[in-house]
């Protein structure tokens, strides 16, 4: 069924592009405003034309008596209580569901709907909002990492047009919100590291608290924060007491906010802190070799289809690439659009690898790149370890590693800033264009 939203999106993008080309081109940051603007249009548009039941994950029945994301939210709206059990998705941390239910309740009160579908559908607003906030957080991270204008433009292109952000922004699941908190954690940690101000440490603490209250995996950034605290502690001897106090503040704020639900579930149901739901044997991939799953790049799998096959695919790098571009879904769009986006994604991956090698080679000249480089490598390894521990198809879904996009974008932006290679610029524009075409076409052809 075709609707008007994709056409409005196209029209809005066109108007923005024309306004940029003709009016505001000369002003500073106008290009970044354009990129962020189009990024927002894509996220909001995708959210609006995609029903909550389309391309969803673990949504379950639209009924408060179920065990999926939907029942979690509906239970909160209708009974005002957290789930009484920890079955299926009810084991999840509650912040996304609480915020979704509040937003959904208010929105539906305003528009006068009170059916289950409307309640669940409105919950996408939180994901979309989180995806948009992540854009701004990324922009500030790049500025904090001293990326220059051209580098920021390239990096923002990567973040704004990364399809995984667009898809997660239109899905009823905590992924976009947890990515937002991770981005904010990274931003506030950097700000604290650069300025040493307590307000940034408090910001970091709250983000950790609410992040972990959204998804335990937000704690994966803790080693980066701890590493920076230790580094600062060692380097700045006169500030050691202050740093210790700041660290205590971080713990005092973040731990209770972040872990109260885990403690509650541990007491009530004996649920372990690191508990993850078993996705089922149908997508078990542990019977293929570790080498073929982790270290090899499965070219045959790339050629076979641009879309993921969660029940068959086992090769992590290719799955990361495909799920970053299309999620775990197949689309009705013409194959040429999907394949061209896949090509753009492959080109970006090659550029990213080249950029990492280039930045490592020049690390002595530009030490500021160490933090994003380490963050990228560390978080990538965390994702691989997660897949090794949980060898299931869906463990490779890029939605669990959305945050990785931000350090990756910085690396590419920095590489472009250093080398000024036209190839990078052209490839990035191609990537952005194909993402736009893909997600406009997805709205039109359904």
């Amino acid at each position, binding site marked *: *069924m075709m609707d008007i939203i994709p056409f409005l999106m196209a029209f809005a993008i066109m*108007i923005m592009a024309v306004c940029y080309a003709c009016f505001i081109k000369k002003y500073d940051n106008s290009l970044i405003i354009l990129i962020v603007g189009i990024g927002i249009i894509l996220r909001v548009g995708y959210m609006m034309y995609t029903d909550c039941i389309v391309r969803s994950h673990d949504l379950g029945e639209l009924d408060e008596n179920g065990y999926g994301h939907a029942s979690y939210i509906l239970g909160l709206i209708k009974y005002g209580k957290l789930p009484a059990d920890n079955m299926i998705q009810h084991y999840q941390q509650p912040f996304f569901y609480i915020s979704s239910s509040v937003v959904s309740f208010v929105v539906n009160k305003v528009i006068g709907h009170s059916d289950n579908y409307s309640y669940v559908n409105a919950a996408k607003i939180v994901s979309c909002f989180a995806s948009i906030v992540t854009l701004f957080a990324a922009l500030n991270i790049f500025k904090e990492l001293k990326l220059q204008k051209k580098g920021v433009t390239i990096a923002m292109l990567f973040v704004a047009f990364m399809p995984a952000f667009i898809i997660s922004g239109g899905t009823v699941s905590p992924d976009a919100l947890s990515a937002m908190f991770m981005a904010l954690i990274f931003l506030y940690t950097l700000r604290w590291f650069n300025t040493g101000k307590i307000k940034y440490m408090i910001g970091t603490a709250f983000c950790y608290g609410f992040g972990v209250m959204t998804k335990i995996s937000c704690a994966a950034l803790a080693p980066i924060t701890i590493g920076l605290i230790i580094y600062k502690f060692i380097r700045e001897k006169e500030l050691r007491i202050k740093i210790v106090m700041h660290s205590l503040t971080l713990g005092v704020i973040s731990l209770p906010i972040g872990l109260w639900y885990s403690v509650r579930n541990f007491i009530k149901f004996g649920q372990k802190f690191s508990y993850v739901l078993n996705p089922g044997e149908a997508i078990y991939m542990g019977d293929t070799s570790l080498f073929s799953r982790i270290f090899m790049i499965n070219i045959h799998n790339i050629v076979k289809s641009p879309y993921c096959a969660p029940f068959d695919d086992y090769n992590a790098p290719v799955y990361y690439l495909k799920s970053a571009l299309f999620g775990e879904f197949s689309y*009705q769009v*013409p*194959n040429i659009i999907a394949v061209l986006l*896949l*090509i753009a994604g492959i080109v970006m991956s090659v550029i990213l690898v080249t950029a990492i090698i280039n930045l490592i080679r020049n690390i002595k000249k530009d030490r500021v790149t160490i933090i994003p480089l380490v963050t990228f490598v560390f978080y990538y390894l965390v994702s691989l370890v997660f897949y090794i521990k949980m060898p299931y198809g869906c463990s490779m879904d890029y939605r669990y590693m959305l945050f990785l996009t931000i350090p990756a974008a910085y690396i590419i932006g920095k590489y472009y800033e250093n080398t000024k290679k036209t190839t990078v610029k052209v490839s990035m524009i191609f990537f952005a264009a194909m993402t736009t075409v893909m997600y406009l076409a997805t709205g039109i*052809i359904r």
Partner: protein
Amino acid sequence: MMMEDKNIFTAGRILAETGILVAVLFFIDIIVENKPAKRLYKMFFILDPVTVVSFLSGNLYLIIGSVIVNGFMLFNIFSNRKNYGKKNCLTLIYSFAGMVTGAYGVIVNKFCFFGKFENVFNSSKDVPTILISSIFIFIISCVYCIYHAFSKTETAPVDENCNNHSIPVTKDRKIEIKDIVIIIAMMAAFFIIGGFRLGSKDIPSTVYKMDSNNREIVLDLGENKNVKEIMVFLNYKSNQRLSFSADVSGSWDIYESKTQLKSPFQWNKITVNKNTRYLGIVCMDSWEWINEIVVIGDDGQVITPVNTSAYKELFDEQELYPDVRSYYYQTMFDEVYHARTSYEFIEGYPIYENTHPPLGKLMIGVGIRAFGMNPFGWRIMSLIAGTLCIPFIYLFGLKITGRRLGGVLAGVLISTEFMHCVLSRIATLDIFVALFIIMLFYFMYRYIQCSEENKNCAKQYIFILLSGISTGIGIATKWTAFYGAAGICVIFFITFFRRYNSKKAFQDNKGSVIKIILCCVVSFILIPATIYVVSYYPFMKVYGGSLIENAINNSKLMLSYHSVTVFEHPYSSEWYQWIWDKQSLLDALAITAEGKVSSVATIGSPLIVWGGIAAFIYTGYLWVCKKDRNAGFLVIMYLANLLPWLLVHRTVFIYHYYPCILTLILLIAYSVIKLSGSKKRFAVTVMVISVVLFIMYYPELTGLAVSRRYIDNVLEIVKSWRFV
């Protein structure tokens, strides 16, 4: 013997390959003076594996691909013959490597991955990843090669008027008396030639009404006779169920039970093949209207029942049953929807065809009101619309090229274009919507021309207003006019923002900018919306409710219909097939007693469609490399009418390409005038070819009966064209 043939064939191919290679090397030797570069270029061609593989495989497509690769490279070398720096050679290596990789990819796909080309543009599960990637690499390399070729050799000073990508223009050329005379002559010629045997004015018209009280017809033939078939000429209602039976040995033998006769205002055939005295027809639904029934014996002669007085209306126009049931005497193709619905509008009957807005059918209705409900009546307005396209195309050609020759060329090309002729002779909506699409672009071009020459504002507003009105009428005729509207929107904004691209320019002209914006809002939003809504008057008359309510409800229905309408059709085609005129559409087919074929087929003229591809590439080059704004206008116009079809996945037909064909005519006219300069020879040659082709194909466009041999041996030059 077979083996011997194969060896000879292979040897022949190798010889041909060697010949081409020698020619290429000779060519390089002539054009390149720098020795190292000469050596490098020669090396490319000697080591070119694609050429070797393609010629040895003997595959025609691969050979063509190889020739394209070599052609591009030679073109690049030729363009850069004065710049033999290191960078040029490297660029050549990059683009060469890309092309070869792309070509190899296609070969690998063909023999190893078996990806199908038709899956490139649909969403089937067999994704031809290798094929798409290879084509992509190939195209990117070609673009890179061309870009490099032109970016290095560009030395000519750029015309001051053409210093940016804004749209257009050529200096306004006044319309003279001579132009008007030429236009009238062309219109008259087209009206006469296109109107030849347009349709009969005499078809059965008296109506026999069957209903629940009068459900049965029993025909008494007087004695037992061999009946071959019954021909039923339906009135406007179709798909009602009728049961046909014959009295055999004293009992009724039902040989067609609950048959749905599908085509209104057409002779519907029911096969009988019985020896009987009585024939029975029973209306199985609530009612049915029949204009005439003809009973045919096994000798092909008409049998007149003895009890015709009981069914006077069914047998009072027997002489109107034609010898050949060709398009001339009845509805053809989609006329069964559009002509019928026009008639329903006139009579105030419930509306059958509601998947397009009503205005086009109201226009068809004007002809029906004037000449009656007969083929001539329902087709005449299409002919008038087709004739009216000629002045607009002529004027467009004249204004955009700035020369009368441009106008004449465009006028001749449209008058002799195949699809234009066919669509001007059939009561469908496409000719109407195309007329308004061409008008909306023409008026937008005129507005830009006036505004760039700073002519008085009133004239500018009038052109915007006319463009808006054309948009409104176009959309109220068929939604495809939206695509054209999107095209002028892009053109308008580019021009507008180019003009007021600085704060100063904006503030200096604040008043006029606001006026133009207001004028646009009125012209492109209020007026089209009003026209669209008002066009629903016939709906309101039949169904009640308000105009807006009817417009909204039917628009929703249309949207859902066009989003999901996918059905099998032997003549349906995809948008990429239109570009090279692959699939014809047979509108009508009849065989005469002498075995001659009278068929009407919708196809594009090969000159326009194939020549248009070259013209589009050349015009694109003029826009991108020479900053030619007229070329930009035409390119956007073409793409606006074509690109939306990439996203349309309903069943579509070649006639949807018609607005693009009109644009191709302008592209050809513009390219020919640009290439030939002051000489007329090239333009005259193009016109002559177009006229000759038109004469050749005229029978196929107008349903004139010709021998089958002529169709098989002369007209069906493309394998997939089917005229019989």
